[in-house]
């Protein structure tokens, strides 16, 4: 159970498949336009429930609960071998090392 007042993310459908703009590529047209918004839940809830949140700007927004306390998980990626020689080669051309 997610306690009232917890920071959560909710999902809402902005436009269903049939409601989307006419000039769209087929792959996009086959999907609904969705939005995810974060804020404090106004009642106890569970993932998958419809819940209301209060956003940081003071808006009340309803949606399906997707995440409790969403974290940032983007990072610095993996080691990329293709980049390892760029600096070394440039320094050799410049004759600095």
């Amino acid at each position, binding site marked *: 159970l997610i306690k009232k007042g917890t920071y959560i993310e909710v999902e809402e459908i902005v436009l269903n498949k049939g409601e989307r703009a006419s000039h769209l590529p087929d*792959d996009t047209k086959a999907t609904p336009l*969705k939005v995810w918004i974060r804020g404090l839940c106004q009642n106890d809830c569970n993932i998958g429930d419809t819940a209301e949140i209060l956003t940081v700007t003071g808006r009340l927004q309803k949606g399906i609960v997707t995440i409790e306390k969403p974290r940032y998980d983007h990072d610095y990626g993996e080691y990329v071998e293709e980049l390892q020689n760029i600096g070394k080669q440039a320094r050799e051309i410049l004759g600095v090392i």
Partner: protein
Amino acid sequence: MGKYEELMARKNEIMKKSIGIDYSIYEKGKLSFDYEKMMKDTGYSLNDVIKIQNDVGVGNTPLLELRNITKLARKVSKTGKAARIFIKDESANPSGSFKDRRASLSAYDAKIKGYKGIASATSGNYGAAVASQAAMRGLHCIIVQEAYDSRKVGQPEILEKGRKCEAYGAEVLRLTVGPELFYAYLKLLEDTGYYNASLYSAYGVCGVESLGYEIAVSCREKFGKNPDAVVVTHAGGGNVTGTGRGLIKAGADDTLLIGASVNLAGLHMASDIDFNKKSFTTGHTGFGIPFMTNPDRSDVPRSAARPLRYLDRYVTVTQGEVFYTTELLAQIEGMERGPAGNTSLAAAFVISQEMDDEQIIVVQETEYTGAGKHILPQLTFAKKNGIDLSLGDPREEIPGKNIIIPNHPSKMYIENLDLNKYRKSYIKNAAEKISGNEILDCDVDFLAEETRDSKDKVIKTLQELNLVIGR
């Protein structure tokens, strides 16, 4: 009429309320409008802009000489010569990019006009800039991002920008792919009554004028002359337009203004599948070309970003070249800066080799780097999305299929795009919006200004389109 069409039909009315500009007063002829009057009606002179920006720590960024990159250009140049390359370190602005210049004026204007909040539709640095300026001015802020594909997978760079907006206290709406983001945005403006900090309003563009102005003034102070060329990363056109106007206001009429975009030919910008096949979310041809040939496709009725009025030349570089240049900037200049902002540096490295040693070429921006917004996560993400990464000749790069990191600095190249083709295309797009086949003499003047071309050439193109010029 569906709810989408219904709301879109009220677009102009919502815009008028959210930005305080009645665009209809500038319209004239059959397809023209008074651009300079619209720019002047912001009520902010260049001096006012500089003062407003000074007050919030925006601008006056250092102009740094890239001595090692210049030396490297000379080593690989066919003539042995290359212009001195300078970079305007715009990452020194409060939120880490030149976009603070654009946001600063909108936030100031919103506060003066009594709005309680400010909003913007952007997945880029501009969101962070608006959020940062809103924090300084005590305004609520909502940023609407095109963030994910339908699987809820997002580019690491966009995820980072969402984080940064929230770090400044903004609310972020993260949407899936599609141009109807504009629908969600209009709905939000209508519901909240917030100020629309559009990248394409006169405020969003005249904030960049200080950048072109500072470059010209710094060069004259340091070297006693204007820069020979300024290279600008081109996407929606505001960066090119504002910088071009600033250079002209500084009297640097002889400086060549060169636009540079990452070549993403073949990738559809509204495609759910293509969305995560590109490694650049802005500064690419997917925005650069459509916004150049049809500037009023933006989120305001008349865009203040009109790049064809200012561009002398337009070139493209590859994704692999920008990643290569980003690594080079870190490795031999000791400056770790975000990849997208280095698009113009990749182009300048090649263009400098067409020039003489005593000439000066200025790269007019850098941007911050960080988790997500960095070559390693971006290349990791590309690989995970099936993009083949290799070392070799960047000429063989096919957007959406592979990324080729140049295996030697001599492999760096640019492609020159024909501005005449885009001038014609602009005229064709403008003409498509009129009813009937007659336009007025004032429209011909307008098209000549818009395309920075002679009236004769404009008339020739109009004749090819079977349009007649009435009185």
